[in-house]
């Protein structure tokens, strides 16, 4: 199972990639693997603001529907509509295809997320490594 260095991870299997004030949010390779073929993705509108942990969208596969949770607080600046059009992008490369971009509200929140090594240990424990 692929885990990229330099990203931040949540226990709900989202990743966060920080580039200055902006951050990108997606789901991990482990998550797409667990979900199986993704059938639907529902993303928020640009301009919507969410607190850390809040549900910002929904991802649905042939097996299950899951909430998408914000790794940190922020305002949506971009929704990657391509993933809504073709959800199989997530199955092909979950790290290459982010879901939304946000402006960070509180950079300090990033410290609460996991780094790659910690996340790798978590998914090993959940039976995914």
């Amino acid at each position: 199972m692929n885990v990229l260095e330099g990203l931040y991870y949540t226990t709900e299997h989202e990743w966060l990639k920080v580039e200055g004030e902006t951050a990108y949010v997606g789901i991990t390779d482990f998550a797409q693997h667990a979900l199986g073929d993704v059938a639907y993705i529902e993303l928020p509108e640009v301009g919507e603001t969410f607190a850390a942990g809040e549900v910002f969208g929904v991802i649905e596969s042939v097996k299950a529907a899951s909430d998408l949770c914000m790794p940190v607080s922020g305002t949506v600046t971009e929704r990657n509509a391509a993933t809504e059009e073709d959800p199989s992008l997530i199955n092909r490369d979950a790290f290459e295809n982010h879901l939304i971009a946000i402006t960070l509200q509180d950079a300090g929140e990033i410290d609460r997320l996991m780094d790659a090594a910690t996340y790798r240990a978590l998914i090993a424990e959940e039976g995914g490594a």
Partner: protein
Amino acid sequence: MNTNYDKLIFEISSDEKQGYALPPLDVGRSSDVDAIPAHLLRSDAPVLPQVSEPEAVRHFTCLSQKNYGVDGGFYPLGSCTMKYNPKIDEDVAALPAFAGLHPYLPQNAAQGALQLMYELDQMLSEITGMAKFSLQPAAGAHGELTGLMIFKAYHAGRGDEKRKKIIVPDSSHGTNPASAAEAGFEVVQIASAADGTVDLDALAAALDDTTAGLMLTNPNTLGLFETNILRISEMVHGAGGLLYYDGANMNAIMGAARPGDMGFDVIHLNMHKTFATPHGGGGPGAGPIGVARKLVGFLPRPTVRKDPDGYRLDAGDGQSIGRVKGFYGNFGVLVRAYCYIKTMGAEGLREASRVAVLNANYLKESLKGQYKLPYDRVCMHEFVFDGLAGGDPQVRTLDVAKRLIDLGYHPPTTYFPLIVPNALMIEPTETESLATLDDFVGAMTRIADEASGDPAVLSAAPHNTPVRRVDELKAARTPVLKWQAKE
């Protein structure tokens, strides 16, 4: 059989054929027709299929023969309790004195029906240890919603308006969080402990003065009995919350343990699971709810009470959350459940649960070498494998399920509960013989062997069905929901 009849009836239709010749119109044009605005009248004849009578009969006969039901074979669909439904229940429900009843009959002319409802309430209360039942909810999930409305009314009645949260374990049935959300609650999910049961620490952390209650099945969705249930009940009640019992797994414990004694405040029963009423087909269903003594006033009304001069509908004392269904619930379903309980008797129901548990453990022990068993302990009426123990790693749970269709079985529940990634959830029920169970073990063993020796036969399964492996992703993304006439 001619595969032509596999097609839609529209696809075997042709304009050269005619199944019925309508006589010429021999009445005058009604003035009512002139009253209909012209734009609402159709100008073209409707597109109806043109087939002969034998073709229509063969088409529908062919369809009916594709149906797979428990009357046709073994159906170990976990969590669904696909037991055989005795035909006497159908005979009794079809008696004209039941089937022909009009719901607006005066009460003194429907005493038998009222007696049946009263006694069913009593029997369900005795089986579950609850104080009283309402028979109105039309299905299990409807019962859940009704039960949660009672939670709400109870807290509101005490002037406690801040209880907005319903806690569910991550192994719960999907309807639990869905019903809670539908009832206007916020859903808090807690992770299960390593042994698959409720994690008491996680529960303690989730409980506070905003907790309206906890929803639980016992045995849980992994088929494991929640041995800490009394402690759980203490914790939830200590925090001021209520305890909801999802009756989906009641078939495991009849005559052995009662939700009411465990401390549950509200329970729904799925009559089609435990009490042998018809499954699926779009209903009608029945999901009666029972409540503890302190909640009886909130039950949907009317219920039935027994007076010295007969049975009467009882509107309650004004505390009721109101009706949740027209009339008195799906009465015909209640008749079947009543008949089932009466024909089984107390000892029969106890025996049913015992054999359901025995059958599940027999299958689990017979197959656990070949299939991965994540929670290896005595199970109740069902258990969950986590895919194959060996064989080609490319072979997935889905392949096992599809191959079982070739071998003449309805597959078990797959990929549920979600906490077991490759879940195969097997529930044989009490109505299967040892010979049937052994045949099924044979089929599962054959599939495990094929996973090592001939995995291609699994990835291409099913081979013997009218439609081969369906594209589930395409079906979810671009479903074709109706036949469209060609222009």
